[in-house]
């Protein structure tokens, strides 16, 4: 009896919701009139999930991520992050955010760039050094601590920016097309590394992408969105195993999921115009 109760508890811990959106609406007022960026978005992201948002431009995938990060305010509906409002979650430094461009400061070394959030959050000098060393190892950039950004390749810069987002131990990692500006070979490599990092750290990851293979390869859950108005058309729980070598992309299971994503995109009339 006690054992069953404990098992049940483990079950609920494993399914602990981190981000919950209910009937989320967001309308931007522009010069051309109102634009509905999000309409009636309902989504639950559990702890440890790797969730990809895929869809054409203007489908609201980035906007949704920005609402989670409290960089945009929804005009309707409710959203909670770690049981708090996004604003409170931001104050509690609940998430690290990775943008499309690495955005490293050219006047700081890689180590000093990673220290940027730590300085702002008031970590001690000793803690800063320790965190920098740990995250540099996570993204495979040991030995580059004292290099300047311009001395690194684009892929390495993006890894440094991921390290910067991981530096303050936020449980949630929000990534807005982080590999969009990189070539496919570098991208494959970084995808593999990102999966490994996710496996090791157990972070909850929200990942925006344009690429169907990238979304299917990385995610435990794929959210397919469509534009005008931005809305969710399909949520796919991936049947792929946790361990994913790159050549899993040639298996029938992978292709089936990819096909379903493509169908979802087509159903959203994404290619009408």
């Amino acid at each position, binding site marked *: 009896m006690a054992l069953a109760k404990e098992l049940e508890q483990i079950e609920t811990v494993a399914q602990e919701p981190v981000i919950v959106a209910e009937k989320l609406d967001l309308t931007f007022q522009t010069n051309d009139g109102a634009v509905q960026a999000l309409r009636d978005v309902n989504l639950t992201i559990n702890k440890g999930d790797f969730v990809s948002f895929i869809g054409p431009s203007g489908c609201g995938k980035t906007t949704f991520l920005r609402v989670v990060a409290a960089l945009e305010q929804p005009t309707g509906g409710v959203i909670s992050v770690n049981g708090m409002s996004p604003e409170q979650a931001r104050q509690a430094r609940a998430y690290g955010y990775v943008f*499309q461009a690495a*955005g490293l400061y*050219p*006047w700081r070394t890689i180590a000093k760039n990673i220290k940027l959030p730590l*300085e702002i959050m008031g970590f001690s000098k000793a803690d800063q050094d320790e965190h920098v060393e740990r995250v540099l190892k996570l993204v495979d950039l040991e030995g580059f601590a004292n290099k300047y950004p311009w001395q690194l390749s684009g892929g390495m810069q993006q890894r440094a920016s991921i390290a910067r987002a991981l530096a303050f131990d936020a449980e949630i990692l929000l990534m807005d097309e982080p590999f969009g500006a990189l070539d496919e070979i570098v991208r494959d490599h970084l995808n593999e590394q990102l999966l490994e990092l996710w496996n090791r750290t157990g972070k909850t990851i929200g990942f925006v992408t344009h690429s169907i293979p990238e979304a299917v390869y990385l995610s435990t859950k794929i959210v397919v969105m469509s534009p005008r108005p931005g809305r969710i058309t399909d949520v796919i729980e991936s049947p792929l195993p946790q361990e994913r070598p790159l050549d899993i992309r040639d298996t029938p299971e992978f292709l089936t999921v990819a096909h379903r994503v493509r169908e979802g995109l087509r159903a959203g009339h994404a290619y009408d115009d």
Partner: protein
Amino acid sequence: MSDVSLPARSAGASAVVKATFEAIFPVVVVVAVIVGLWYAACVPMNIKASLTQAEREGAVIVPPEAKVRRDMSPIGLALANPEHTGTTFSQERPLLPAPHQVARELWNTTGDMVLQGKGFSKRSLLYHAWITLSATLLGFAIGTVAGILLAVGIVHSRVMNMSVMPWAIASQTIPILAIAPMIIVVLNSIGITGLLPKALISAYLSFFPVVVGMVKGLRSPDAMQLDLLRTYYASKSETFWKLRLPSSMPYFFTSMKIAMAASLVGAIVGELPTGAVRGLGARLLAGSYYGQTVQIWAALFAAAILAAALVGIIGILQRRTLKKLGMAH
């Protein structure tokens, strides 16, 4: 093919020589052309005075009638009297002094006086240049600090953005020649004389480029950079010190160069209404009172050399700082 067969070392050395030559050659050509045009211009500018002088000394001038000569073009006069063109380069008070006359005057009032141990006498151009330089630097410092403070206010406060900028622009539309005497007179009447009034005129001219440049520089971080700091819940002051200020450095140095040149102009203009006592501005004014064109030109060149040196120093600081900040490679 012969280049390839050369030993690598001498090929490298000759490349350095070639690069140096290619860097200097255009400058030399431009200077030579300017000096050539200048000498050429001296002849028609000064020919009438040369002919008058020669006639007084008993020489025969073509044509002999002064009345006919008055209606002739200077170039025509020079062509008719080629033997008298030589003296156009050596008049005491020429309309346009020749380059070597200006150079000699510069040397006589600087280096030569230093050699005589009178480098800082009141007749020395070094003394007057120092007077102007001190006002320029003080005014530049005041203007730069004021410009930065205004820019910080404009970037951080909507009210200041709306209210200060139009006034700053309006202030620069007032001719400095009109407002400089007012500043001198008003400050004089409340007992402030000497360096400060001139420095304030310099500051009046030099704060503006700093405001414009720094507003642009402090706003140069893009939306993504600002969003990143928002995700860290960074305060306005952290955003300023860690992002906005370092990002503004390239703009800062460029606007400082303009401000320095403006500041020098301000100091010179500020010296005009003080009765032409001290400073390069005073030398310009005194020169024009007494028709000492050589002195005017020497003072002009001293001002130009001073400006070039000051802007050059800022340029060196700019290169060093930006390199250190990883903004130039």
